[in-house]
């Protein structure tokens, strides 16, 4: 069943008809999502969260290419995210670039920085690489903060987007982001099935063995950083327009860590895992803060806080729950949500046994 007869089967986007059908169903779901949702929920809020999830999914895919497929760690992706956001907004603000030109340019600028960060990564591993990438992320935001060109510490307001003279609404932006996210997902899946992707995976499994097999380490490691940075940069550009205002302070270390958490919780080395990880973590992050508004549980928490804790810090429960969920997923599914998916699939395939 798993034997491939020729190369083209190997690089096919959809491994089986089932996946194809599900993918189409998912795309249809994305397309009619605003329709479905508006019967039960106000549109803008849900669309906003969907947009945020899509942007985070692009970042998570990009980071997964680096972390999950190539085996390099990065604690500095907020830096690429910031580069993407600022280099998208500035050309549009200052020189009236259209979005569909500014966005790829931002991606490429970001990937140049990715290439630069990839150079020390040729020699560094583990904690050493972690510190180098962490420093990179902090340096980028500090530089942006100190250059008046980037609006300095005051931040920048993203311009209103127009298409053929009509201003784009959230809902139009939703389709734009979804289209880009779908394209980039397909791109990532494709890339991982080609020579490049296989080289990445070889480096992850053992870089020395990969080099012995003729994989050019310098080329592929920096390429992995560059591709990852490209994804993150494009996502950053979109993020700027979702928020409408960007400020270097927002791109801090916690953001990089959240990205990493999305990838690990979703499942290392799985594109679909990245998407689910991004969706889960983003949704929790926004929804958990209303935890003390839950009917019975919430008031019990308030009483408990009054007795034993402090009332002023009650919102911290959300942080605790978030951290706990993160730990539990990694504890019980080392492969993340993706691992859970594989297990369920196996269970059904082999069912009566």
């Amino acid at each position, binding site marked *: 069943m798993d034997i491939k007869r020729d190369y083209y089967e190997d690089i096919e986007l959809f491994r089986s008809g089932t996946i194809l059908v599900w993918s189409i169903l998912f795309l249809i779901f994305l397309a009619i999502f605003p329709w479905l949702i508006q019967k039960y929920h106000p549109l803008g809020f849900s669309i906003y969260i969907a947009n945020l999830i899509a942007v985070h999914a692009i970042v998570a895919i990009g980071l997964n290419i680096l972390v999950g497929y190539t085996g390099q760690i990065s604690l500095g992706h907020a830096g690429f995210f910031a580069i993407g956001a600022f280099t998208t907004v500035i050309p549009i603000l200052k020189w009236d670039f259209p979005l569909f030109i500014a966005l790829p340019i931002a991606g490429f600028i970001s990937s140049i920085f990715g290439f630069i960060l990839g150079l020390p990564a040729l020699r560094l591993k583990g904690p050493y690489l972690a510190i180098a990438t962490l420093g990179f992320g902090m340096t980028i935001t500090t530089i942006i903060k100190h250059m008046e060109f980037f609006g300095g510490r005051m931040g920048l307001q993203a311009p209103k987007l127009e298409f053929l003279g009509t201003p784009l609404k959230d809902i139009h932006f939703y389709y734009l982001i979804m289209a880009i996210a779908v394209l980039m997902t397909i791109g990532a899946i494709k890339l991982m099935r080609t020579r490049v992707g296989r080289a990445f995976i070889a480096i992850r499994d053992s870089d020395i063995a990969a080099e012995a097999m003729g994989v050019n380490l310098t080329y592929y490691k920096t390429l992995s950083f560059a591709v990852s940075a490209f994804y993150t940069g494009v996502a950053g550009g979109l993020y700027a327009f979702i928020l409408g205002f960007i400020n270097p302070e927002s791109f801090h270390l916690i953001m990089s860590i959240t990205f990493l958490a999305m990838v690990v919780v979703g499942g290392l080395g799985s594109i679909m895992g990245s998407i689910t990880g991004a969706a889960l973590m983003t949704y929790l992050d926004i929804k958990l803060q209303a935890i003390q508004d839950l009917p019975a549980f919430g008031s019990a928490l308030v009483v408990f806080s009054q007795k034993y*804790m402090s009332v002023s810090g009650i919102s911290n429960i959300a942080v605790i729950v978030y951290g706990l969920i993160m730990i539990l997923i990694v504890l019980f599914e080392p492969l993340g949500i993706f691992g859970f998916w594989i297990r369920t699939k196996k269970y059904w395939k082999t069912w009566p046994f």
Partner: protein
Amino acid sequence: MLAQLIVSGLAVGACYALLALAMVIIYKTSEVLNFAQGEMAMLSTFVAFTLLDAYHVPFHWAALLTFLFAILLGIFFEVVFLRQAKDPTVLGLIIITLGFEMILMGFAGWKWGPDQRSFPFPVSNIETYNFHGLVISKINFWTIVVSLALMFVLFLFFRYTKLGTAMRATQQNPIAARVMGIRTKRILSFTWALSSLIGAVAGMLIAALGILDPPMMMDPLLKGFAAGVLGGMTSLPGTAIGGAILGIIENLFGGYVSLAFKSVVAFAIIVLMLCIKPSGLLARHYVKKV
């Protein structure tokens, strides 16, 4: 000014070194990057604060109780969370420590609220020792002494005691260590207890130097991590050298070049240095066999 900058750099470097020490001990035995280190220290410091402030326990008792708490906290984390992970990846372990960090941060915020507090400490952070015009505050001086002493003791411990040898064995080859009769699980718990204890010492000193609030350890932890990496992540004397270099570079750069880039310049130098010595200053560079 130059001499004063170097002295202040050494003083702040000692704090970095203490945190680096705590991280290095863990990394040495289990190859986990413990991002919860700072928050574990912060929580212990808050416990000490509560004992001192609300129950008026004398300082030495409060410190002892806090150390006990820190040890239990370290063991708790190892046994309840880390040990449960089945064939974890390195990244998975990092995420677990990050999750634990969030839990601790949330807990501290919930229990003590977000207000800044001053940590009552017997040694003043304003009174100073004066060496021919060079000023160092009493607490800074004692921080340097404590970190050097701790490092020396730990160095001897790892080199000459049975337990220390067992810890090194566990790091180098856990399976072989277990075959030789070392209870590796117990060794790991012990490592976490030890690291959490050192963290608590660092936390109390850092709180006394500045103020006490839930996010107080975020910046020191990063710097401590950087100092550890600079020194070589597996070397105990390396942490002292890493911390001192980091503190001095930061202060000199801040004093003579630019204050704005002071906190990031350290990272730039570390990256450059690591390009030359990829495993830090004092660690031997192992190349994995294939």
